[in-house]
Structure formats: structure tokens, C-alpha cells
């Protein structure tokens, strides 16, 4: 068994060479092909580092907050993902001990990283062996039910990291603006898996959105998820396939926003987990976060095009695919 530890989440993310459904999944090369990284056995057991305390957050508070976040993912009715708390451990997140550990760790050098997830992967089949999450104790944290001004909500950030822990990559369903002091400020987002957190004090990230639910359901399908459908096609600019375009499907009845990316050199995308019915399709450049939050830095993501609102309603069938649609964007 070949085992390799990947580095922190932002660096480990690579696009699947084939269109993936709904969102980015972590891909790992197995036998010359890319497979989605996921857990093979349920429930997934996790431990909490016995040293997981920072001012205002005792170990018990930490346990309760992450338990709520795990429960949110586990409650998705169309996903079979399940977790089990294994108790406290003397291990620290990041130790290759076969146990998935969550806890605080001090990383002042990572001055823009609130938390990070790392993996131990069985490279023979792409299954996860271990996944650890550290929360950067350099930042102020809160477990207050209503949030605390100036402190980051542990449950919200844990919800995001547990998405990674489960195999999900980042979603681009969000709007940001550049800050004068550097970095970006989130104006709004519609996915817990958006790569940039809300400002300190916010608890808006405690609730999974349709895009998150589609993502985890596609990785671990259950219930009537097979009755949902997909929307697929290509994004072209001047007739040339476009890599890294963000494609959003909006359901007129449910108001759900679920999105995907063009993920190969043919400019193809596939958005899965969609409720049946007509969809409004919108294409936008990946300009609300750094492209390397989504794709390997070696990938050439084209952001030089205007937003496209497709002039057709695309019908997603029950349990099937829309059939390929070509979305032609124009340069800015």
C-alpha cells in the first residue's frame, strides 16, 4: 500500500480531468486515472486533541461545536456520510497515526489561514485513511450561540473544514471585494465550501446550502439522490474551450443555486444533484477568489470574459442529464 500525506487543503486541490458533478472534489491519480478522494468505510471516526483549548473555548466547548458541525453534514438526507466521535486523544492534528484528529494548533506564520485539513491517502485506490483538521489558535475563536464580535465562529469554520474532511473541494458561489490591506472580504456566499470565511463575529456559515448538499450527496449518494439530475455542456470563448469557468444553475421553483466548473481542456462541465425542472444558467469568470483556491496553480484559468446569462432555460430531467449545452462567452 502506497501512502502519502498531502499538504494543506488549498495546495492539495487538483481538478479532476473529467467534469465532476456540482462542485470540486479532491482528485488523486490511481493507475493513470483520476478518482475522487473519499472515505470507504462508514461511520468515519474522528478524535479531538486533548489540548484543544484556547481562551474562551474549553475542550468540551470544542467537542460540542465540532459535533454540531459533523451532525449537520450527517443530517443530509441524500447522503450516506456518517461520523462517529472516538473521544479525546493525546495526538495533535497532522500526526500520521491513522486517527483523524481535530484540534487547535498555533500557526502565526499562516496569517490568513483560519483552519486547514490534511489527508492520509491510500494511493492504490484513492480512499482516505486519515484526515486531520487544525484550527489556527493565532486567531480569536468563539463557540457562543449567537457569535461574538471580533471572534471567529468555531462551528462555522468546522463545518467548512469537515466538508474538506469528507472529500469536498471549494465552491465559488460567493461574491467578494478586495480589501485595501490585502486579501478579500466576503460580501455574500451561498456555499459553506466557499474558500473565504465571513468576517469575525458572523455565524452565517453554520448552515449547509444546496451546493454543499449536492456535493456531499454526489460523493456519498443515498436516499432519492438518484432522482436528481445533472446539467452538462461546454463553455467556449470565440469557439475555443474555456478552462475554469464557473457555471451556475438556478432552479426557478426551489430557488437553489448549485454550481460547477469547466474542468478540462474541452471546456466541459457537469453540474449534478439538481432538482428536475428548467434552470437559469449563468456563467462567470472565477474572479471572486484566487484561482489557486480551486485549481492547481499550474492550471491556466481564463478569467477574461463577461458574465453570460444563457438565453435558454435548460431542462434537467429526473435522474438524467440535460444533454450538452454550449455556452458562448465573450471577452471583456
Amino acid at each position: 500500500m502506497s501512502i502519502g500525506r498531502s499538504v494543506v487543503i488549498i495546495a492539495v486541490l487538483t481538478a479532476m480531468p473529467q467534469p465532476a458533478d456540482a462542485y470540486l472534489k479532491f482528485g488523486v491519480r490511481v493507475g493513470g486515472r483520476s478518482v475522487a478522494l473519499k472515505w470507504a468505510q462508514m461511520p468515519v471516526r474522528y478524535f479531538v486533541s486533548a489540548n484543544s483549548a484556547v481562551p474562551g473555548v474549553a475542550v468540551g466547548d470544542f467537542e460540542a461545536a465540532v459535533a454540531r458541525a459533523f451532525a449537520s453534514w450527517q443530517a443530509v438526507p441524500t447522503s450516506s456520510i456518517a461520523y462517529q466521535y472516538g473521544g479525546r486523544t493525546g495526538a495533535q492534528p497532522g500526526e500520521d497515526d491513522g486517527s483523524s484528529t481535530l484540534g487547535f494548533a498555533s500557526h502565526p506564520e499562516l496569517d490568513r489561514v483560519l483552519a486547514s485539513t490534511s489527508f492520509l491517502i491510500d494511493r492504490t485506490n484513492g480512499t482516505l485513511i486519515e484526515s486531520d483538521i487544525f484550527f489556527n489558535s493565532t486567531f480569536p475563536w468563539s463557540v457562543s450561540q449567537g457569535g461574538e464580535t471580533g471572534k471567529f465562529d468555531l462551528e462555522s469554520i468546522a463545518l467548512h473544514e469537515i466538508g474538506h474532511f469528507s472529500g469536498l473541494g471549494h465552491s465559488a458561489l460567493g461574491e467578494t471585494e478586495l480589501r485595501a490591506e490585502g486579501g478579500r472580504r466576503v460580501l455574500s456566499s451561498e456555499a459553506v465550501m466557499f474558500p473565504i470565511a465571513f468576517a469575525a463575529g458572523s455565524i452565517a456559515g453554520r448552515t449547509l446550502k444546496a451546493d454543499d448538499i449536492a456535493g456531499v450527496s454526489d460523493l456519498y449518494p443515498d436516499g432519492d439522490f438518484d432522482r436528481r439530475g445533472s446539467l452538462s455542456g461546454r463553455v467556449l470563448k470565440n469557439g475555443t474551450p474555456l478552462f475554469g469557468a464557473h457555471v451556475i444553475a438556478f432552479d426557478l421553483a426551489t430557488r437553489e443555486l448549485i454550481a460547477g466548473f469547466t474542468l478540462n481542456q474541452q471546456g466541459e462541465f457537469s453540474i449534478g444533484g439538481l432538482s428536475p425542472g428548467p434552470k437559469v444558467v449563468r456563467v462567470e469568470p472565477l474572479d471572486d477568489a484566487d484561482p489557486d483556491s480551486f485549481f492547481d496553480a499550474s492550471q491556466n484559468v481564463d478569467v477574461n470574459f463577461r458574465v453570460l446569462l444563457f438565453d435558454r432555460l435548460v431542462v434537467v430531467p429526473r435522474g438524467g442529464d440535460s444533454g450538452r449545452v454550449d455556452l458562448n462567452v465573450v471577452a471583456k
Partner: protein
Amino acid sequence: MTRAAALAACAFAVCASTARAQDPNSRVDFGAGIRWAGHANLGSATATETTGSGSTSPLFSTSSELSGAAGFGVNIDVRVARRVEAVAIATFAKPTIHTTISNDIESSGSVTASETVKEYAFGGGALVYLPRGNARLRPFAAGTVAYLRQLHESNTLVATGTAFQFGGGVKYLFGSRRGRFKGLGVRAEAAVEGRRKGVAFDSRTLFSPVVAASLFARF
């Protein structure tokens, strides 16, 4: 035909002729014609994202309607009482869903996205002749309920629902004859149609005006 089936057929024929013998005015109208249904407002929906305070921020807005469309219809009206007919209907039309997308956070102007729907309805109801009129021109009020089956453009998704219609009109018989074929006529009517479910983006009942004209043969 098996013996049992043959007996059943004979029994039915005897009953039918008996009924006809009891009611010399018994008749059936077979009609076919065109109809036009007005547009129906499918409502508005805004694509929103969540802000850090938990409120929503619009990404873009949509407003949808099912266009007015001409179609075809057939009907069979069977007289069941002096002034009452039982009605069976079947209609077909191809309306278009138009969704106007506007106020996009990153794009100015608006775009209309469309999709055409094949729409079938099968149902029945009652037609009541009003006291006014004469032997050739007879006004009526009618109501029907129909099973609505709408097939989306890609033929991969069906939406079903109920359509009910209330209205009135006139039947005009060009001339009357003795014998089995009693004559030709035209029927014109106006109605209000309500729809539940089917192609709809919320739970409201959608209302639209309907006008129809048909040629009928009376037997």
C-alpha cells in the same frame, strides 16, 4: 370475439337502442377547432446569496410567464338531459416559458431565456344550455376539469397537473336534418382557465383567459 364478449356487445347495443327509443332528442356533437389561451404569470424568483449577517443579497432576479398560445381541441358533447350535455375534451398547445433575467450583480441589461412546452389536456365536464336562444342559436355555460400533461422542450421531463375551465358561449347550427346526421354547426366560447401544478414555479393557481372556436357535427 368470445361468446361472453359477443353477448356483452349485444346487450350494450340493445340498451343503446332502447335509450334512443326513449329519447327522440338524444344527440351527440363531435367538434374540432382552435383555441387560444392567454399568458399566465409564473411569478418572480430571485437568486440570492447569504451575507455575513445572515440576510440575503441578490445575485440576479427573474420573472417568468407562460406565453399565450394557440392550440387545437376536440370535444364530444353528449346530451344527457333537455338542457344538459356531458362534455369530453382533449386539447393540445405549445406555449413557451419566458424567463426574464435582470439586475445581475455583475452584468447590466436583461436577458430572456425561453423554453417551449408541449401541453396536452384530457378531461370532461358539463355544458348547460341557457333558457335564451332558439333552435339554431343556443347560448350555454360550461365547466370542465382536465388532466394536464406538459412535456418540456427536451422531451425528457413531464409535468402534470389539473386544468379547470369555466365559461360560456354559443352553438350555432347551420341547419337541421332528420335522420342520424342532424347537421353541422359552429361553437364559440370564452372562458377562464385555472391551472394547478404542471409547469409552475410555486403553488399558486394560474389563471388565464381562453377563447375557442370549433366546427361540430351533430348526430
